[in-house]
């Protein structure tokens, strides 16, 4: 009898603890709708050492009109860089991809465009700007890795070109990205000068 009572009490206590732990405190009294969660920027603090913020590097515009090369090398196709929600900083986990791209670029006279993209959870012009900042942050990383800034162009497509359709984090995480596009060199020869 006593044993049963104790077991019951424990069960009730555990249940109560479980319920209390499961109830999230929602100070804004907002009920998130299915598929969306109001995430504050501080939710996504990356773990481990951050790649440091650097000075913006101006864009000359010399590469703006260049077309994509017919053949895109696997090293550029395969090393898509992914970002945390609402962030543009390059996470340490993505560093090895950018190192591979940097090696490729230093291995020849190569011109590349970084394309920044966002998931749908932002308004259109906000995302257009955020996508550009992601592309620029990738460019800054490559420059720090020794690639000449003149060889790297940027473009943002905002949320206009998702890689994966869908309204869940599985899709969104695949859309918050920067992709690389090898550019055709202009007919007169490579425009960039200076050390690679």
């Amino acid at each position, binding site marked *: 009898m006593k044993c049963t009572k104790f077991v019951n009490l424990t069960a009730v206590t555990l249940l109560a603890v479980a319920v209390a732990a499961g109830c999230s405190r929602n100070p804004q009294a907002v009920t998130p709708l299915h598929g969306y969660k109001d995430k504050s920027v501080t939710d996504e603090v990356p773990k481990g050492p951050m790649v440091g913020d650097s000075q913006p590097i101006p864009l000359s515009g010399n590469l*703006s009109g260049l077309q994509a090369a017919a053949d895109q090398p696997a090293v550029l196709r395969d090393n898509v860089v992914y970002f945390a929600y609402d962030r543009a900083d390059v996470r340490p986990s993505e560093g090895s991809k950018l190192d591979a791209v940097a090696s490729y670029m230093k291995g020849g006279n190569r011109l590349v465009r970084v394309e920044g993209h966002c998931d749908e959870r932002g308004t259109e012009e906000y995302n257009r700007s955020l996508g550009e900042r992601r592309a620029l942050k990738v460019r800054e990383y490559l420059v720090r890795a020794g690639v000449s800034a003149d060889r790297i162009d940027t473009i943002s497509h905002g949320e206009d070109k998702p890689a994966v359709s869908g309204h869940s984090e599985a899709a969104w995480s695949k859309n918050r990205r920067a992709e690389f596009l090898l550019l055709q060199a202009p007919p007169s020869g490579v425009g960039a000068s200076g050390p690679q």
Partner: protein
Amino acid sequence: MRTLIACIVTFALTFRAFGAEDRIVIERPMDDLGFLKPIPVAISGFSGEVDSVLKNDLLFMGVINVPVDQAKYLVNGSNSDRVEGGVTDKVTKHPVMPRKGYTGGNLRSQTHALADDIAQALTQLPGIAQRKITFKVHTGPGAKEIYIADYDGHNPRAVTQDGVNVSAPCWAGRLSLFYSSYKFGNAVIFSHVLQSGQRKAIARYGGSNISPAVSPDGSKVAMILSKSGSPDLYVSDIEGGNLRQLTSTAEAESSPCWSPDGRMICYTSRERGGRPSLFKISANGGRPEVIPTPGAPIPSEPDWSPNGKWIAFTSLIGTFRIFITPSDGGRVYEVAEGEDPSWAPNSRALIYCKGPDGGKHLSLLDVPTKQFKDVPRVLESNSQPAWAR
């Protein structure tokens, strides 16, 4: 005694005649936020499309159609031949707006003109029914075009036919648009004269040239350029000269809009610590100030009302919602579910968009009553509306 009565009557009649022709007092009670409470009128004499267009127009100008016993004013007219109408005070029978006829255009445009005149007579606010809107239309995979239409979505027509990505159209006066197009590969800001179709690249720097906003006096354009290596706020003359950088942050600025007196620019960026916020800065440059929007997180796409009092913007709380805040911020009021608001010329209605990605449509909102009316969609998805002023 008779003389005395005669004198009193004459005096009374004279006094009455003098008072009657002098002032017509229209009561315009306001609600707690300073918007006019809807003025009740009884509309009669119109038929078919004219009748429904008139009632819809007036709704977004703070004039509502009610049964005669609840009305303060009578709107009477006809459209058997051309559209004509006038407004009288129900009780005193005094004319508030003498009967007018409209010619030219078509029945719809005549009705819009009548509606604007009625609203102006009753509310003293600018009319909205004759002002056009511009917006972005998804026409097919990867292709978007800029369209214009009547404010209620009628008579849509394509302004661009480039088959590339375009975004963020805005008005320069009522006859030209500015927008960002990927026609040259990267996003470039164009001006586009509607009548001739003539256009000119206004900002074609390296990186992204996006989110143009023309100043209310038409002399300048604000925009977001990334040529410095980060998306920053810039201002230039309307032809693109005298470019001046207003912000140089490590953050990404976006979606600028002007105060109606042209002295300030409101835009989105982040505070130190990373929180997205609305900011305002002098159009001549200087220190930006946060416009606090407590309870409306991740504010973006602001639009400053033409009377200077309010800033409407989009917030993300689960879904996109439209809020308004006084131009100094501090308090917010949710007014609709949707995004990307643009104020009507009367600072009372606004147009915005809503719906799922790939299938958005525009909608009209009467801000103080929160009544909204969806606008018929053109092709696949409509977004980024802007109302000419």
